[in-house]
């Protein structure tokens, strides 16, 4: 099976929505707005931690153009979790639509819907709110002190799964595992290391900010058109938040202007839905860029203490991680992100003695969420920095050290079994791993053999070469489910409907390719539609690197069932046993050379004899989460006078199994690397003393442009994952994890400095250079 020849998958077919988007045709939520829609504006909390002692919206309700005002006094008080995860969520229920307490600068206070955005803004100014200010908690250290203010003191707060939740101590979750004898191994190691790393707040920054629109259909149901990665979770959470049945709600996802995890939340939908129900009008709400920064979801800042032990021969004898995850004012994704610090990172290297202990802590700062990489990004910075350090200590080339220790096909890890998402994990043996080839090909591409020790470098400008290895997962095993339905049309084309949510990744195209391959047809015969809770089957949505691997297998299974129906009809038409038939190129052939085209077969089934609709569906859950693997390499030039870093070249190799669409897989890698580069070098949240982000603008939060683009080479290294559709694993998340550790290791190779936090701003690098000289 491994060497099968594919006709559609593993080919770079054109992305099926590429041209419509390049032409600027109406595709996104904002493009669907009717001219008479109401506009929403929100009054956000100016305080990080306060009780609302009074709120008066009466004047706002009489302002020109105002049609609806919402606040905690006139909305349902149903505790929920905004994180779009499986049910019951591995996250606390700690959120109300509006609450009488605000917990960060940017928390909801009151919302207005008016005929124009300007009228809504004017009305907000007339809302009178008095606050009782509470001590804000801005650090995880303060949050964990015994006398710290309690951020979630509402009695309804709880977590719907059996894991520790201690809001009275500002603790969202605790998770950990032990394997072997960690303490003993650490004590007996030839060399041991103990460093603490801090990773910063950052944001996804999709160019389309959060946006949702709702209206009431002719039957009185509420229809929400929204930029979401999780339409089915959004429907469930809207129902809970508003206290209305799921059947009353339809969620439609049109094209999405990027998500990267930020839209794995229900953040705007409840407000537009309730306002549509109250006004009977179309209601649209789009966040401004500043609002998107301050109130949207972020990458959790995590403190990671890494303790490791290594023997002189290069054996990794102890690997320990203690993590404290700052989840901000609400706890969604906090537990699962920090679990992935362990589960997606610790298994990468063979080690018998493993320790992992993590806590998730509330603060009065912006809220963490799902962000591409999901904890692995933070943890790989720390672990891959320290791996380099260990190799240095024993005098081994860090590339060779990694080659010696990395996980291989056939290996398991106690971590897989111990750490799941809100529960124990799933035992797993690695079925496909081409990391050895990733390392070799990447090293050749960057010119690793040119690398010389930092001690031999002098002068103002010094070059350095660094590397790191990475893994991720593909879906959440035994939890995530995807389904697909395929219906045949009378010209031999097929409708493929999926709940899987293309947020710009190209998953509609990839899933269409998988269906076309299994149906023995071509991509132009596939009409792919995602996602609409009325029309498409369920899917958990676009997260956890699951769509290709999980939803793709559902699509493949559905396609096989439909192909069998096609062969059955053809057997009837050609009067031969179905087993003797062969399908290729939209035609069924009999052994004696006769044939029936797909169009003829469908017309026969629809109109001629024993009529039925050729269609079927399939669901899929996974029993493992096969990791993709990657090795990243960077060469940079450090200006030791200024601390400025100039990237000379970057090489990203990735083993994603069979690349269903190689160009799209490269695109995922290139985009992930670029995002990771600006995360490593320029992106950061700056706060004032009251907890307000001060750089909530693309002018002051620097996203890289084409001008900053380094020379980037992507190498897809094939392997074959037997459990994935046509051998595929995931590709979308892994590559964002590489730049921070690879650059840090290159800085060491350039000038002998190792940083424990980033972004690697010139100031921070320069300070480190001064420390080293002193």
């Amino acid at each position, binding site marked *: 099976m491994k060497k099968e020849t594919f006709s559609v998958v593993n080919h*770079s077919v*054109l*992305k099926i*929505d*590429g*041209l*419509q*988007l*390049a*032409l*600027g*045709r*109406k*595709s*996104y939520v*904002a*493009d669907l707005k009717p*001219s008479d829609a109401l506009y929403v504006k929100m009054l956000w909390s100016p305080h990080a931690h306060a009780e609302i002692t009074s709120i008066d919206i009466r004047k706002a309700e009489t302002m020109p153009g105002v049609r609806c005002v919402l606040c905690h006094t006139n909305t349902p008080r149903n505790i929920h979790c905004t994180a779009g995860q499986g049910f019951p969520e591995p996250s606390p229920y700690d959120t109300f639509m509006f609450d009488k307490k605000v917990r960060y600068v940017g928390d909801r206070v009151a919302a207005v819907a008016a005929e124009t955005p300007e009228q809504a803004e004017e009305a907000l100014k007339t809302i009178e709110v008095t606050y009782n200010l509470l001590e804000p908690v801005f650090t995880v250290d303060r949050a964990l002190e015994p006398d710290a203010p309690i951020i979630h003191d509402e009695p309804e707060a709880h977590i719907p799964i059996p894991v520790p939740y201690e809001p009275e101590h500002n603790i969202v979750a605790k998770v950990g595992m032990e394997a072997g004898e960690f303490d003993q191994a650490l004590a007996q190691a030839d060399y041991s290391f103990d460093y603490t790393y801090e990773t910063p707040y950052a944001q*996804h*920054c*999709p*160019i*389309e*900010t959060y946006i949702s629109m709702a209206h009431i259909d002719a039957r009185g149901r509420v229809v929400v058109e929204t930029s979401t990665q999780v339409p089915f979770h959004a429907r469930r959470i809207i129902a809970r938040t508003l206290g209305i049945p799921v059947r009353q709600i339809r969620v439609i996802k049109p*094209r*999405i*202007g*990027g*998500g*990267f995890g930020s839209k794995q939340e229900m953040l705007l939908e409840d407000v537009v839905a309730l306002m549509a129900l109250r006004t009977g009008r179309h209601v649209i709400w*789009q966040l*401004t*860029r500043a609002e998107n920064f301050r109130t949207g979801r972020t990458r959790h800042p995590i403190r990671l203490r890494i303790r490791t032990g290594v023997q002189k021969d290069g054996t990794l004898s102890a690997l320990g991680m203690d993590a404290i995850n700052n989840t901000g004012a609400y706890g969604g994704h906090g537990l699962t992100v920090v679990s992935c610090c362990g589960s997606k990172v610790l298994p990468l290297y063979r080690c018998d003695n493993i320790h992992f202990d993590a806590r998730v802590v509330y603060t009065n700062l912006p809220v963490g969420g799902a962000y591409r990489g999901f904890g692995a990004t933070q943890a790989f910075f720390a672990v891959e920095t320290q791996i380099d350090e260990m190799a240095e200590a024993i005098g081994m080339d860090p590339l060779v050290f990694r080659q010696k220790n990395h996980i291989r096909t056939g290996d398991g890890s106690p971590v897989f079994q111990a750490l799941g998402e809100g529960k124990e994990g799933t035992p797993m043996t690695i079925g496909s791993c081409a990391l050895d080839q990733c390392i070799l090909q990447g090293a050749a591409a960057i010119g690793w053999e040119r690398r010389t020790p930092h001690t031999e470098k002098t002068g103002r400008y010094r070059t350095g070469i660094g590397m790191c290895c990475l893994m991720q997962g593909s879906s959440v095993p035994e939890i995530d489910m995807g389904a697909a339905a395929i219906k045949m049309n009378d010209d031999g084309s097929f409708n493929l409907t999926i709940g899987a949510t293309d*947020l*710009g*990744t*190209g998953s509609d195209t990839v899933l269409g390719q998988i269906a076309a391959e299994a149906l023995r047809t071509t991509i132009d015969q596939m009409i792919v539609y995602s996602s609409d809770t009325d029309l498409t089957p369920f899917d958990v949505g676009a997260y956890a690197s699951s769509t290709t691997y999980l939803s793709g297998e559902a699509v493949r299974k559905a396609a096989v069932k439909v192909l069998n129906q096609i062969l059955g009809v053809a057997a009837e038409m050609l009067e031969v046993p179905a087993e003797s038939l062969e399908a290729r190129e939209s035609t069924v052939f009999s052994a004696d050379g006769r044939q029936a085209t797909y169009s003829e077969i469908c017309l026969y089934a629809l109109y001629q004899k024993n009529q039925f609709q050729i269609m079927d569906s399939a669901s899929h859950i996974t029993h493992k989460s096969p990791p993709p693997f990657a090795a990243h390499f960077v060469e940079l030039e450090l200006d030791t006078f200024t601390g400025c870093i100039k990237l000379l070249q970057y090489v990203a190799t990735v083993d994603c199994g069979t690349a269903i*669409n190689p*160009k*799209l897989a*490269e*695109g995922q890698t*290139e*985009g*992930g*690397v*670029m*995002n990771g580069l600006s995360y490593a070098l320029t992106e950061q949240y700056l706060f004032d003393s009251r907890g307000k982000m001060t750089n909530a*603008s*693309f*002018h002051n939060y620097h*996203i890289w*442009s*084409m*001008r900053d*683009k380094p020379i*980037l080479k*992507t190498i897809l290294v094939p392997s074959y994952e037997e459990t994935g559709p046509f051998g595929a694993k995931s590709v979308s998340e892994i590559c964002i994890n590489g730049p921070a550790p690879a650059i840090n290791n290159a800085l060491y190779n350039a000038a002998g400095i190792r940083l424990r936090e980033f972004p690697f701003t010139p100031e921070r690098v320069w300070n480190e250079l001064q420390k080293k000289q002193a």
Partner: protein
Amino acid sequence: MNRKTITCKINGVQKEFLVDPDTRLQTVLRDQGYASVKFGCGEGACGACTIIMNGEAVYSCILYAFQADGQEIWTTEGVGSLDKPHPFQQALVEEGAVQCGFCIPGMIMSAKALLDREPDPSEEEIRLSMDGNICRCTGYEKIWTALHKVIAQGKGRES
């Protein structure tokens, strides 16, 4: 409110709008159905609203509609169609450069302004001309490749 009627030529067609003095050009264009003009930041930083006005790529979100009075404007809708895409639009699709696609119309307008002016630009001219358009999906590699493909084919000035 001192409303004023402005006239401008959009994608070759003469148009007339009654606008308020504080209305942004981006708002008028979107309200008139030019959906390619995206809202990404509203502060002249992301480039998703880029249009061509009198031959120059400009951010429509930080222009007042009044400033378009008497001017000639092109949006992505005027550059290509399903039947006849602009060579750069075609190249973007062929190279897999369109992921979420939200930044792409702005990219197209910046590139078109450059290519109309200089069909064979230097690397530095390309980097500077495209600097005002942010993409979070692609890492720019495939957009870069598509642009070079058009330039190499000598199709830069076609529209």
